[in-house]
Structure formats: structure tokens, C-alpha cells
């Protein structure tokens, strides 16, 4: 199998770390070679955060490069726009329909682009979700990243059982059930 390239992008503090932990556990569980890379120097301070996940028979480079991503998971609209050129021609873009203004927008030095999703849809296969709203319906806002993973699961190489098992091993014990539900919500959303 050819090495599969996944990218997760978001804003520092959005919890991309948990997402990559689940993906790491999953690839290990399935017996692939895997490399994950995330740079989190000043990322906690509201900056743009990028995580790369690569898995396959044998993985060398720990980063995904421009034009290589099979799946790009964006936790925020502007970050989707910023990294969309990393997608392969037939890659899938999953976007959490949330807006977080970066500082240049807050202070009026730049404008938050309108119609990001419409622009991206002209070029890419885009799967939208308002994961925060969906998570609120489940009564636990923090499950929003597992909902997003549920969508991504339809475009990756692991069985639903494997996903659920790894989620169970990764999230805090008290939240196992709600996270499993969250996964199911995402899994069915664009099925």
C-alpha cells in the first residue's frame, strides 16, 4: 500500500493533540508503520497548528508536503483555506465550520475572508460539519474533535470496530460513552 497522508490543522488550544493521539493508536493497532509530527512551540498561544500523520508499509519523512494530503482535517475555516494547497487532486477536505478571528482581523488590519467554503468547494471535495453544535447536542462540547474524526474515518483504512476500540483506550474513562456516540454522529454525517 502507498503511504497515506493525513493532515490536521487548527488553532492552538483547539485540541488537535487528542486527535493525533487517536490516529497514532489506530495505525499501531492496525500494524502499519507510522510517523506523526506536530510542531507545538508557541502553538498554545492561539497560533496556527499543523499535525501530520503518515502511515503505510514503511514511512520515512515525518511531514506531509504540498500536494500530498489524502485527507485534510481543518478545525477552523481560515485554517482550511491556508492549507488547502496541501491536498492531492482527489484529496478530501473536512472542515469544521467555525470561525476564530486571528489577531490581524481582531485589530482591523486584515479581513476574515468571506465564502471560504464556497471557494474551496470549487476546487476540492469538501465535507462540512458544525462539530461544536453537534457536540453541544450530545451535551459535551469537548467531543467535537471525535465527531470530526468520525467523518474522516469514512476516508481511511480502518474498520469502525478498530476506531471505537482505540477511542475507548484514548479518551478519559468517564467520557468513553459520549465519545463513542460522537464518533457515530460523525461517521453517519457524510456516509
Amino acid at each position, binding site marked *: 500500500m502507498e503511504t497515506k497522508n493525513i493532515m490536521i490543522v487548527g488553532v492552538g488550544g483547539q485540541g488537535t493533540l487528542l486527535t493525533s493521539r487517536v490516529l497514532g493508536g489506530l495505525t499501531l493497532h492496525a500494524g502499519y508503520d507510522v510517523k506523526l509530527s*506536530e510542531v507545538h512551540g*508557541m502553538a498554545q498561544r492561539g497560533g496556527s497548528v499543523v499535525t501530520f500523520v503518515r502511515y503505510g508499509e514503511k514511512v520515512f519523512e515525518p511531514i506531509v508536503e504540498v500536494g500530498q494530503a489524502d485527507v485534510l482535517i481543518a478545525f477552523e475555516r481560515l485554517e482550511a483555506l491556508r492549507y488547502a494547497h496541501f491536498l492531492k487532486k482527489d484529496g478530501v477536505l473536512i472542515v469544521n465550520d467555525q470561525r476564530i478571528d486571528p489577531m490581524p482581523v481582531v485589530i482591523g488590519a486584515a*479581513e476574515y475572508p468571506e465564502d471560504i467554503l464556497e471557494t474551496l468547494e470549487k476546487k476540492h471535495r469538501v465535507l462540512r460539519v458544525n462539530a461544536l453544535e453537534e457536540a453541544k447536542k450530545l451535551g459535551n462540547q469537548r467531543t467535537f474533535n471525535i465527531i470530526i474524526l468520525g467523518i474522516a474515518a469514512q476516508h481511511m483504512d480502518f474498520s469502525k470496530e478498530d476506531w471505537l476500540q482505540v477511542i475507548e483506550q484514548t479518551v478519559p474513562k468517564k467520557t468513553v460513552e459520549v465519545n463513542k456516540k460522537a464518533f457515530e454522529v460523525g461517521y453517519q454525517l457524510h456516509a
Partner: protein
Amino acid sequence: MKDKTIMLGNEALARGAFEAGVKVSAAYPGTPSTEVSENIVQYKEHIYSEWSPNEKVAVEVAIGASLSGVRALASMKHVGLNVAADPLYTASYIGVNGGLVLIVADDPGLYSSQNEQDTRAVARAAKVPLLEPSDSMEAKEFLKFAYDMSEKYDTPVIVRTTTRLAHSQGMVELSDRQEIPDRPYEKNIAKNVMMPGNAKGRHVFVEEREHRMAEEGCEFPVNRVEYNDRSVGVITSGIPYQYVKEALPKASVLKLGLINPLPRRLIEEFAASVDKLYVVEELDPIIEEQVRSWGIDVIGKEIFTVQGEYSANMLRSAVLGEAQDFDAPAQAPARPPILCPGCPHRSTFYVLNKLKMHAAGDIGCYTLGAVSPLSVVDTTVCMGASISTLHGIEKARGSEFIRDWVAVIGDSTFMHTGINSLMNMVYNQSKATVLILDNSTTGMTGHQDHAATGRTLMGDHTYAIDIMGICSAMGVPSVRMVHAFAVDELEKAVREETAKDELSVIVVKEPCALLDKSPVTVQYRINQDVCKRCGMCMRPGCPAITKAADGTISVNDTLCNGCGLCGSICSFGAIERVEV
């Protein structure tokens, strides 16, 4: 079957320390090295570990442990090694008793550092061996090899990582811990007391050691030749090896693990067996220049940059001349790092900005006081430099010149080296004003304890050094404390202290907004009936306050941390406190 798991490079290094039988570990946090110590804590039944106040102290602690006969570790980021350069250069002469290893993390691409220096140059200058792994598994294994080497050749060893390795996860096979018996301690003045007469003899030993390692290093298992198509050969190491394998799968590769001293014979043999030879190394041409000096023709920095990280695409373009036919990135407003919602530093910088103050800055989250909209910080050099650079400005231009200047330094950075600079201000009669932004933690690197927090790395409660007490004891005539969100009091304190003709310290106290992990219970909302849309509340640049296209200003309820800074600066009482 051995256990397999996925580990961060830094986590694998910590595991390597455990498996190597290390007994003492000391460090000061610094991205991207911090997780080494954070992971060593899990082995606390076997390894004593500590946050030392700075890297010099950490390396000296490790030297002491090694001299006493146990395996010891110190870890730090590249600029931390500058602080620890003094002990390192002489530890090179003394050598070791128990194995002594320094993990040093470089930051090509400057993800979170003030410069892009190359630790391999320091290893050459200090004449200590340097190993460079290229994935998590190697990180663990090379660290173990480093201890064997350290004891065999009687030398400290540096294991160098980079951000990409330190913060990448890969597969690791676990092994058991080797129990290494303590070596006997023997007093040996000629070896361990570096006064000139003794150091002369040890310098001879150091030079012999370098020659011996360069020769015997040709057989070290950390170096590997992968012959393939011999028309193209590549000498590489570390993370760039991965890019080479990805971009040039047919090339022959000499993968070096030992970077200092270079295994010359091995390199000469490889060079002789390939037609065209490249050296692929991030940052400085450390390998390339030495290889060239031996009369070997190589292609290196004339086509590869000395700045930033490499990638497979970059090699495809530089080596293979492949056109890079990719979409250009979309135009998107930048998202630079910012002070978090609820950050006490925002309040401090708001006040300093309002008073039109200049600030000599330091290393920490509060370096972000330099960015728009507050733009208070004038200079940032290195740990502890805020206080000493302000002193220099005062001595050069007089105390009137610094009437509208302060130094800003965090609590952890003050304990690191700021304390020395303040001592200098007292001694040399400064009249400056120093703000110690005490947020009760080492914030930037992700909340590590330090000498003034009352807790150790291993989780024990301990004496919390009293920062105000230290300042008073040193003889600072005016020492006062203000809470960061008491905006009016803070403003008054800064006005009064900068007006005085004596040295003052203002400790601006408020815990980091991220320290308390419990859910937010208080937030602020803008009462639109009262709001005049003057934009005053937006001046501090809080990311939770946004203005819509129609001019309506509102507080984002997923971001607001309830600090209340906006409420205390609104002149119309339009911002209300709500329980959530």
C-alpha cells in the same frame, strides 16, 4: 516479542535514559527539549530528576553525578547549551566516571527560538562527540550507545536532536532497563581539578581521544552505508536522512550517526565508491566543510540553504531539478501566536502601552508584548537580558533617558539568570524599574515548576523561594507587589516607581490563565444598549472580543476566560460580569 509502541522523539530519549540505567537527570525547560524531562518523571523509582534553575546548573549537577560514579543526563534546547557552555568545555577535559550525556535540541525553522544556531559547531569546539539520531527508535538506541561511548572514551557525549525529531512520533521497540552498578568514587586531583597544570595534561588526552574516536568511529553501529545506484551518493544524518530516502530512493547513502568527530576513513571510502557526492545537512555546512578540507569534491550549500528545515520536495527540486507544479497557497490573513484570552501579561502590557513605556524584554510568553496592538517590548535577546540591557542603556544614556523604560521578565526567567542581572543593578547603583511578571509557572514551555513555585519536577512540595524577599535581601530599595488585573493600581505603581530616583522592582502577580484547568465560571458580556462602540475594550487585543461588520462589539463565549480586563477599562460600564 518485544513491546512496540509509538513515541515522541523526546519520549523515546527519556525511555533511552531509563533503559541505559541513568540515575540522575537535570534540565531547564526549553522547546523543543522539555518533554525529555517530563517523560523521565515516569521512571522516578529509578531516576532522580529535577528542574534546575538554568542549564549551567543542570549540566553541573549531571557532572557531579557522573563524577560520583552513576550515569547522568542533562537536557536543554540549543540556546540553553550556551548558558551551559562553561561547564561543558571543561567537562570535556575532565571526562567522566559514570557516563555523562547532554541532550541538546536545535530548532531549524525557528519554531520557538530566538536564533537558529547549530549545536554541531559547539561539539566541535568543545571537542566532545556528538551523535544524531533520525527517528524515535534511533533516539532511544543512540542515547544508550552514547552512555557506552561516554564511559569507554572518558568523555561527555552530546545527543543532538532537532524540533522535527523531538516532536515527531514513531515506532519504538522497548527493552528492559540495564542495571548499571555504581562505579567506585576515587579522588583524582590530576583528572578532576582543572587548574592549568592539570588541564595541560588533559588537553593532550582530549586530542588523542578525538583521533581515536574518529578512527574507531568508522566501525560504530550508529553509522550505516546503504549502497544502491552508485552514480549518486549522499552523506546525511538526522532528520534530513528521511527526506533523502523519500526524494532519492535510488541513491547510495552514507547515514552518519557520529557527527563529531567525523569517521574520516568511512567517509573517504564512500566518497571513492560513488560518482557524484552530495552532503545533505540542515543548518551549517559542518560535515561538508570538513569533507571538502580532505580534498573530496562534494555538492552542498551551493544548492541547499543554511536556513530552515529541509523537505523531500526541496531535495527533488534542488537535486533532481524537478519542476514543482503545485497550487500556490491561498491568500489568508496570518495567525501569529498571541497572548491567550485571560493572560495576565495582556493587562500589564495594556498599562505599559497606555503610559507609553518602552520595555527591555525577555524570553517567555511575554515576548509577545512586542506584537501589535500593544507593541510595548523594544528588545529581546536571551534569558535574563531584560534587566542587564536596561542597565546598559541607563549607564550609556543616564537615568533620565530610562524614565519611560522598564524591564519585563517572568518569574521562571528571573530565577534562571535575571537574578544575576538584578544583583548587578543593585551593585552598580541603577535607578531603573524592573517588572517581574510572576505567573507562578514556566508558561511558554507548557507549565513547568521552578524554584519559586513550591513544587519539584518529581511532584514533591518544597520551599518556594520568595521573589520579593530576594529582591529586598539583595538591597533593592523599593519592592512592591501588584495584581496584574488591578489595572489602576498597576498604573499607579508604574508611574510612581519610574518617577523615583532609585532602583525598584514591581512584582506583577497573577497565575497563568491556563494553570487552572477547571471550567470557566465567570465571563463578561457587552450590554449592547449601553455600548458606545468606542472600541476601547479592543485596545488590549484580546482574541475573545470581536467587532462585526456593522460595528457591534461582542465577547466570544467559547474564548472568554473571565479575566475582566475589558470590563475594568470600559468607561461606560457596558461590560457586565456574568456567571456561566
